[in-house]
């Protein structure tokens, strides 16, 4: 979050905005990642946000998204189905109530309404990180709030 010491306008981290909102939606949550190699990065973000205690697991997709994206690992239907399979385990085996698919570009790779369908099918809350980050940014601007100058002095 070095950017916060460079500007005075609000800087919203998509991950931290998501995890802090998740804490208002239920007790336990689980994360589905799109590439196991970057799980440590995601876990660092969760620890930095102090949201580790309610995390049940972070499970990756079987076929990772990687770059360059010359060929996509899943069709939209396959991706939705795999998310459903992983989430079902997290819900049934771990007691997760909320599922975070840690991929802000998710909506570009699934059919419209995927998260709503998954929520209905599995009776759990599926959140859209990109939407949460965007609405958090709008809310901060609307409320005329930004980060603390004491915590993030201009450097």
């Amino acid at each position, binding site marked *: 979050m070095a950017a916060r*010491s*460079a500007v005075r306008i609000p800087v919203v981290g998509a991950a931290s905005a998501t995890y802090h909102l998740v804490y208002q939606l239920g007790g336990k949550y689980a994360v589905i990642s*799109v590439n196991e190699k*970057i799980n440590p990065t995601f876990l660092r973000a969760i620890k930095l946000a102090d949201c580790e205690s309610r995390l049940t697991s972070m499970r990756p997709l079987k076929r990772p*998204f990687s770059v360059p994206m010359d060929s996509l690992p899943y069709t939209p239907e396959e991706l939705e189905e795999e998310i459903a399979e992983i989430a079902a385990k997290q819900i049934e085996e771990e007691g997760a109530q909320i599922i975070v698919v840690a991929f*802000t570009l998710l909506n570009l790779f699934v059919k419209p309404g995927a998260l709503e369908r998954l929520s209905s099918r599995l009776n759990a809350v599926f959140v859209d990180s990109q939407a949460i980050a965007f609405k958090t940014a709008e809310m901060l*601007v609307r409320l005329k709030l930004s980060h603390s100058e004491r915590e993030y002095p201009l450097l």
Partner: protein
Amino acid sequence: MMKIAVIAPGALPEEAKTAMKADMLTYAEPGTTLEVFAVEEGKIAVAADLDLKAPSTVALAQKIENQGFDAIILDGT
């Protein structure tokens, strides 16, 4: 009117930026506009930690603020 900037962790194809914008505008307040920027330094990473590219991210954030944006979203952090 509100201007939101999204910083992606790596260079994105124009079509991906356009699709991201279209998706976000479906839930934006009326009058909110947005632009997608990318930290070009290094290899693109899916949801990479932008703090790994802190100097470039800081420079881009300052540029965005100077352009009159109201807020910045860091994707992948």
